[in-house]
């Protein structure tokens, strides 16, 4: 892999990470204030649609962005109404918002533009185009021949839309707001122990509403980025589970902003690798070894515990062992490989496995075997003022 490939991969990582990052920080604000938010996906989707639709009608990407933020904040307020004012189930409210967005975007898009649930293509000022920083090289040919530093500058640093730079700035901003301001202290306190905040004379309801509104703004930018910067129109279900992967990143980052950036970059890298390399080969022996080590680890953990642990861990270990056998069988079946020759063969990693990696990682993290993720203590509980 030459250096330029590496730089383009890093560039694609940033682009893929950005909507995840914005949604992840949205979730961070909301959950730090004690409001679970599994409606990130829906808010992003609604924003993606309205941003593209309004940008098309007005011809201005900025007005589109505002519209996207508007609809996302509106959905946030519904979530706030359900979970703060009426003390309903925050998870169910999030589920409802996801469906509402998935259904309404297509119904309204069809009624508005009649193009099969998509919006017309955007061009010119209706779209956030990449910004070429001064001195950046334009063509691929120039970039390949340039010095490594120039390659990094032209491909990786320059050429993104303004939303990417804004997105990156939100990370230090989030950190500063949460950990260096009075507002942030109160916001975190409301997510840990709302009664203490209430006792101090600060309105829990107002703090929580502020948090969900901030989450709405960030999801709005994320959605607008997808439909007016990455792509040039809205298509049905275009968020493609990014809201859930952002949630995964949030847990992976243990509800901290800088770590959220790291997690989103990691998951963005998975996306980039998946689109860049269609055919990733790994030596069969390594896969088999990894599966067997995992199986052994599970058995080791389960054996010393209760019957349910033995059953589940034993079952999982068996699944891993069978997978290892299948991989070996597959490799050995290759032409002229033979049983042991098969170990030296390489196996193509399925694209679906790479796409599933964020989900797998989150389950591993949630399982608490590798650095336990502890959510804000008052998360998911409606606050009832004492009488």
């Amino acid at each position, binding site marked *: 892999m030459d250096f330029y490939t590496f730089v383009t991969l890093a560039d694609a990582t940033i682009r893929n990470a950005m909507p995840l990052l914005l949604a992840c920080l949205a979730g961070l604000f909301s959950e730090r204030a004690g409001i679970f938010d*599994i409606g990130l996906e829906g808010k992003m989707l609604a924003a993606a649609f309205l941003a593209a639709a309004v940008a098309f009608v007005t011809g201005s990407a900025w007005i589109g962005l505002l519209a996207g933020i508007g609809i996302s904040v509106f959905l946030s307020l*519904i979530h706030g*109404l*359900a*979970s703060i004012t*009426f*003390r*309903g*189930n*925050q*998870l*169910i*409210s999030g*589920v*409802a*918002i*996801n*469906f*509402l967005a*998935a*259904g*309404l975007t*297509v*119904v*309204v898009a*069809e*009624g*508005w533009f*009649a193009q099969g*649930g998509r919006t017309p293509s955007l061009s010119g000022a209706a779209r956030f185009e990449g910004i070429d920083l001064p001195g950046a090289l334009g063509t691929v040919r120039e970039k390949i021949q340039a010095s490594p530093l120039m390659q990094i500058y032209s491909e990786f640093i320059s050429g993104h839309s303004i939303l990417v730079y804004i997105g990156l700035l939100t990370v230090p901003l989030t950190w500063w707001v949460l950990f260096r301001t009075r507002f942030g202290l109160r916001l975190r306190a409301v997510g840990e122990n709302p009664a203490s905040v209430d006792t101090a004379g600060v309105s829990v309801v107002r703090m929580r509403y502020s948090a969900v509104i901030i989450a709405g703004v960030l999801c709005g930018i994320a959605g607008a980025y997808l439909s007016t910067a990455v792509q040039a129109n809205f298509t049905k279900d275009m968020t493609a*589970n990014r809201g*859930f*992967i952002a*949630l*995964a990143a949030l*847990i992976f980052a243990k509800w901290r902003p800088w770590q959220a950036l790291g997690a989103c970059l990691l998951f963005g890298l998975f996306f980039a690798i998946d689109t860049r390399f269609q055919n990733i080969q790994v030596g069969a022996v390594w896969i088999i070894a990894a599966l067997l080590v995992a199986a052994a680890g599970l058995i080791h953990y389960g054996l010393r515990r*209760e019957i*349910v*642990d033995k059953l*589940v861990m034993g*079952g*999982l270990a068996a699944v891993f062992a069978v997978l290892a056998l299948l991989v070996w069988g597959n490799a050995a079946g290759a032409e002229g490989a033979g049983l042991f020759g098969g170990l030296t063969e390489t196996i193509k990693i*399925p694209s*679906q*496995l790479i*796409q*599933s990696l*964020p*989900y*797998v990682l*989150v*389950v591993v993290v*949630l*399982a*608490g075997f590798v650095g336990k993720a502890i*959510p804000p203590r008052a998360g998911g509980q409606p606050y009832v003022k004492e009488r």
Partner: protein
Amino acid sequence: MSGMPKWADVVLVPLVSLLLAGIISILVFVAVGQNPWEALQQMVEGAFGSSNNIGYTLFYATNFTFTGLAVAVAFHGALFNIGGEGQALLGGLGVAVACLVIPWPHWSLALVAAVAMSAAFGALWVSVPAYLQARRGSHIVITTIMFNGMASGLLIYMLNNVLRPEGAMQVASDVFPQATHIPSLNDIAQAFGSNAFGTSPANITLFLAIAACVGVWALIWRTRLGYEIRAFGKSQPAARYAGIDATRITMIALLISGGLAGMMAVNNTLGANTPQLVDNAAGGAGFIGIAVALMGRNHPVGIALAALLFGALFQGGSELASDTNVPVQIVIVIQALVVMFTGALDNMVRKPLEGLFAQVRRGARSEA
């Protein structure tokens, strides 16, 4: 405790929620330039207008009964199994394996195997999230969402690389052998000389769904295990104090839930007009189960009725989509509104009603 008579809690609250969802749906119809009254007529016509349409309504209702029961069993234990979709996908894989690997001599044997395999695959798919919830305290909602993502990846991989017959264009498994095809309701009707269900795929799995309703009712309200699940759902500390094993109840409730979600696949895989496993086989039914369970107040009778309602919505919405420019996603909108009003905004609907009943009661007392 509640300020309302039982009938109001069971019937009135869901109906008011449905009414609110209906009003907003009307606004949506108006917004996209569709006459709501005409749309409603078309949807009712589409759901019940012909024997064929009724058959489709029942076919979808069968799916939603299974997934609704799955969500409800977990809800009784205060567990939110949002992974019905993934468990149903895995259930489909179980059905495909059962029907493609063994050459069954008769459909009844194939049906038994398909039911067993789909339930087993669904339960296995929830076993890891269930275990992590029970033993490691990992939130079941997050883990089942993640398992939904993995399930769709796994299914696409299996269809593309393992189950797809060589040279086939469609991303789907082979059609199951003729001997495994289970009778459709129309096959039964034809035995009596009628053509009551047309060419619809409604099949004998419907009776299985009804049996599952009875089974869940008996389990939850007539067995010791059901009592333990409900007690655990009401108050975990109290249940623990009463000697109920939290790990055991969490695991069992979720395994039953996953099994029920998996069994849905028998209907829409083995029972489909072309019995084969296709991509995205669950088609969102796992999620509709959430609306069905909420609407049906977690009771099998309510779930069966709510499933019928959503079956009619789904079929009516499909017909509406083919006749007008309102896409089928209108059903998702209505489903979302029902979930919102019956689930998350329950207090908004309930509190004013409770106040109303309290007032009426006070009025009656002062007159007496």
